[in-house]
């Protein structure tokens, strides 16, 4: 009996130490550097959770295929009309750039992907895309929809990637607003609402005397080199606040509501070696044309 009692005490003490150790470990997990947390999450997603992610991608693709054919057809027709009308503008633009002796812009392409939300706690503002490194996607590429800017890619896997939308607290984008008096610049970031549906964008750091008209278009300025220039972020709303006569902040009506986005495109900037390959191809085509 005495032996059993001391054995029980020993077990309880061991259990107590295990619990204490695990609690300490969980607190360490919370305070780990972001990179380490990312590594752990990535390792779990690529191992234990892999089958569930495959199911998620499969379900997303099946849902995408089941969309109304006529809607997709109508969207395709609209896109073709736009492309046809844009061809003339592109040619005019090329001629004007030639006249002004301007360099070609860095070519970029759009990679289409389905936006998938994972339903676990703490994953709000985060989405998965069913396209990854194999499609040329890299970390920090911009994610856009037909309406405007949705968010940014953060982690890239071989066939899928993870990113966050503009409602994430770490989201920032340099913005410009073209007005009659010129351009106003600032930094757009998310501001939490009382409910997640009330999250909104705020343009901070614009000059105090810049008087922006409500409804003016807010575009990415391309400063910082992360987001390409000219993507629609939203429209200027009411004044959010001013700081001691130095700058003024405005609420922005977002162009894209994150919850409504089911499809998006990733703005992939072609890397330098690809650019060289394109240039070589262009040269060889030019030489071939000259021979003809």
């Amino acid at each position, binding site marked *: 009996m005495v032996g059993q009692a001391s054995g029980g005490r020993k*077990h*309880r003490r*061991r*259990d*107590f*130490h*295990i*619990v204490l150790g*695990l*609690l300490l*470990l*969980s*607190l360490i*997990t*919370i*305070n*780990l550097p972001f990179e380490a*947390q990312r590594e*752990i*999450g990535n390792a*779990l*997603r690529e191992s*234990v*959770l892999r089958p*569930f*992610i495959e*199911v*998620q991608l499969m*379900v*997303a693709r099946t849902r995408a295929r089941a969309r109304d054919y006529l809607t997709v057809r109508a969207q395709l027709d609209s896109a073709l009309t736009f492309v046809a009308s844009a061809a003339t503008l592109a040619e005019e633009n090329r001629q004007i750039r030639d006249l002004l002796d301007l360099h070609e812009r860095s070519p970029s392409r759009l990679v289409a992907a389905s936006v*998938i*939300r*994972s*339903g*676990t*706690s*703490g*994953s*709000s*503002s*985060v989405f998965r895309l069913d396209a990854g490194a194999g499609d040329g996607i890299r970390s920090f590429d911009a994610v856009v929809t037909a309406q405007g800017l949705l968010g940014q890619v*953060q982690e890239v896997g071989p066939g899928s990637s*993870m990113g*966050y939308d503009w409602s*994430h*607290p770490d989201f920032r984008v340099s913005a410009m607003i073209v007005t009659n008096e010129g351009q106003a610049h600032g930094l757009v970031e998310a501001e*939490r609402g*009382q*409910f*997640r549906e009330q999250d909104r964008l705020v343009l901070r750091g614009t000059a105090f005397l810049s008087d922006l008209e409500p409804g003016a278009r807010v575009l990415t300025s391309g400063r910082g080199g992360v987001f390409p220039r000219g993507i629609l972020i939203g429209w200027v709303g009411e004044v959010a606040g001013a700081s001691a006569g130095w700058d003024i902040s405005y609420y922005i009506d977002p162009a894209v509501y994150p919850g409504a986005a089911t499809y998006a495109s990733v703005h992939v900037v072609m890397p330098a070696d690809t650019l060289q390959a394109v240039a070589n191809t262009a040269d060889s085509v030019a030489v071939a044309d000259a021979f003809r």
Partner: protein
Amino acid sequence: MNVREATVVAGLIVAHLLLRIGFGLQNAAPDLMLLALLLASRSLSLGGGALVGFCLGLLEDAFSMLSFGASVFALTLVGTMGAQVRHMFVGRSIFFQSTYFFLAKWVRDLLAWLVSNPDSRDVFVDHVLIESPVAALYVAAAGLSVRYLFLKDSARE
């Protein structure tokens, strides 16, 4: 823990991941992961309950970019408490079991909220006093269903 209980616990974990991640049902599916932990921890030692909670929390946090570790901490504590409750209460009634599931879910959400990143967490009243009790009722209903559908004999023991 007997084979049937272990099978039900494993099934609940797989169902949770399948419903919430695979089919993207989010909160439309009850928190079956927590339910699995509560059922498992009732038959495990304190250390065992904490360890299962820790591992399940890591799985839950694998998709978290806002507050990594919050679920790990919350589920480790809930797993410990689940194992400890067995020594304090021996309850078989529907009232006891539904209260047990309800309180566990509410405490889990409260703990996760407390250690979450203050910049990203929801407002206390909305999250802990409105959303969480509703989710806790859902878990309690699911827990009772699982208990009486799959673990009827274990509930009588």
